[in-house]
């Protein structure tokens, strides 16, 4: 004779077992997802490792000083990177001079000066949008504006300015972010002792956000170093067996600006050129170049990430 109570307890026991099974199942889901999530994260790491190992193995024959000190050649084994790395270096100099002061100034304006109105909104929307414009579009802009519009030709100046525009949003955004991290109290303290706005901005805001800005600049420069598409679009030459005139001369005035209008090639373009040839011997050169580019950009990005980490740890306010 089953009392209602015993029926109830047996069904609640059954319920309990069901609930336990459900909890177990859901906990399993948790573990399962943790594993899938870790795998998803590992994909990036594994790709990076495989990519790097592949380049090193493929290019191992060409890791010597001769590769860095020879010009491109029709014979793969004698071809080198000299004109490409010198070109990259000179282009990066122009990029730095073009993008950094401009980007920092723009960041300062937007963060410290800009009034809240449609005009500031317009600038902000533009900065955000520019960060999303495909890099090859910058190449088309440069082709129309710098190469033909302003008559700079296919020169180091054109390439440097193009990459400068390309990394401008990166510099602006990182400047703004590091400025925003500075407490208002710092500014108020400076105002309280009679500093003008520019004195506050220059002596305090800029000084304290220096590290953060530097981080953004390094990341931007690393991006510029590896950028290929916009430089190809402006029509950079791929077979350059001369060096641009030296920026520094032994006679007064010691500085020489002819190099700005010189033809050039850069490392990513040299790599693209080599890997699009049918002859396999050139692919070895491409792999070696790729390995060099990747080491330099990883070092730059690594420095930036480390710097940011240090800054975050050492913040005093």
């Amino acid at each position, binding site marked *: 004779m089953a009392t209602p109570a015993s029926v109830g307890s047996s069904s609640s026991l059954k319920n309990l077992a069901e609930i336990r099974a459900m909890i177990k199942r859901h906990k399993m889901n948790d573990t399962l997802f943790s594993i899938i999530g870790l795998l998803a994260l590992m994909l990036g790491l594994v790709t990076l490792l495989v990519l790097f190992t592949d380049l090193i193995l493929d290019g191992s024959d060409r890791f010597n000083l001769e590769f860095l000190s020879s010009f491109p050649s029709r014979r793969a084994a004698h071809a080198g990177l000299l004109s490409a790395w010198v070109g990259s270096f000179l282009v990066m100099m122009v990029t730095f001079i073009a993008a950094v002061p401009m980007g920092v100034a723009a960041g300062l304006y937007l963060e410290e000066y800009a009034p809240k109105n449609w005009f500031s909104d317009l600038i902000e929307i533009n900065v955000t949008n520019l960060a999303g414009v495909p890099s090859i579009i910058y*190449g088309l802009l440069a082709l129309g504006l710098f190469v033909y519009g302003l008559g700079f030709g296919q020169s180091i100046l054109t390439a440097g300015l193009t990459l400068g525009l390309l990394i401008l949003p990166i510099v602006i955004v990182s400047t703004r972010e590091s400025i925003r991290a500075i407490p208002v109290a710092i500014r108020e303290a400076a105002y309280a002792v009679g500093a*003008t706005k520019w004195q506050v901005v220059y002596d305090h805001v800029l000084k304290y956000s220096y590290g953060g800005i530097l981080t953004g600049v390094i990341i931007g420069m690393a991006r510029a170093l*590896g950028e290929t598409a916009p430089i190809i679009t402006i029509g950079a030459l791929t077979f350059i067996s001369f060096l641009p005139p030296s920026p520094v001369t032994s006679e007064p005035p010691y500085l020489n600006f002819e190099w700005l209008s010189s033809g050039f090639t850069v490392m990513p373009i040299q790599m693209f050129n080599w890997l699009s040839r049918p002859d396999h011997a050139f692919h070895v050169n491409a792999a070696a170049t790729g390995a060099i580019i990747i080491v330099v950009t990883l070092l730059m990005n690594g420095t930036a990430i480390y710097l940011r980490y240090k800054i975050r740890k050492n913040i005093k306010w």
Partner: protein
Amino acid sequence: MDKKTANSQQTSTVVSARLARNIRRNIKERVIEFILMLAALSAVATTFAIVAILLTESLGFFKTVSFIDFITDTQWTPLFEDAHYGIAPLVAGTLTTSLIALLVAIPIGTIAAIYLSEFATHKTREIVKPILELLVGVPTVVFGYFALFFVTPLLQKVFPDLPGFNMLGPGLVMGVMIVPYISSVAEDAMRAVPMSMREGSYAMGATRFQTAIRVVTPAAISGIVAAYILGISRAVGETMVVAVAAGQQPNLTFNPMESAATITAYIVQVAMGDLPHGSIGYQSIFAAGLVLIVMTLGFNILGHMVRKKFRETY
């Protein structure tokens, strides 16, 4: 008496000197502000310059080529004797490679974001995020090499018929390349969901996974969509991977096992050659660029609309 006048005279010169200094200071401040504003305006100027250049050169292009041909012709051979100007093959190539990339990047990026935001310990996050950032820093031409000489040969072992230039390999590589962009933006959005919502969910007895999928993800959906849009823009505008590994023959197909040129690959191909300024070939790359910009803009507007529809505020 004399002393007093001298004193007041002195005060007044001090005051006027101060006044002068103030005025100088004010002028200096104004000039500096103006210079900084000019720098900020460079962003607006760049946008205008991009639009102006693309439009003027494309106008030249559309004087020779009818717009109808441009969208309806199924061949793109501007540099041949028998020139055809149908953008469709290039758009098909761009969409196919982008679609493959997104099929890889969206699921993996979302899973990675959920894991980083809801499951990972502080330490894991501190280690993994910098590595993902390093992946973002790898130049795309290097990924192109990887797609052409590593991934494609690997795929050929599975699909023996796969040609050396195909859309599958670069599409997959592009997908892996885009994962960090999607995961970092999506993760930021998920971390911005208030803790109290998770706590509410846990209090009801939900597990981590249930909380992540049913509470955090819906709450962060507008940010996650923004991450997808960013991924789409990257995929559509990506140049070197496809230019290197997908081939440069315009081919009206959506079959990833075939080789085809994308819009970006075409621009690269033309720019590598020596086209005279003002020729139809030269103008055609600006028309192609215009299509590219319109496509990314279209995706961005679509994303904006989706975000607006699903946005949740707390």
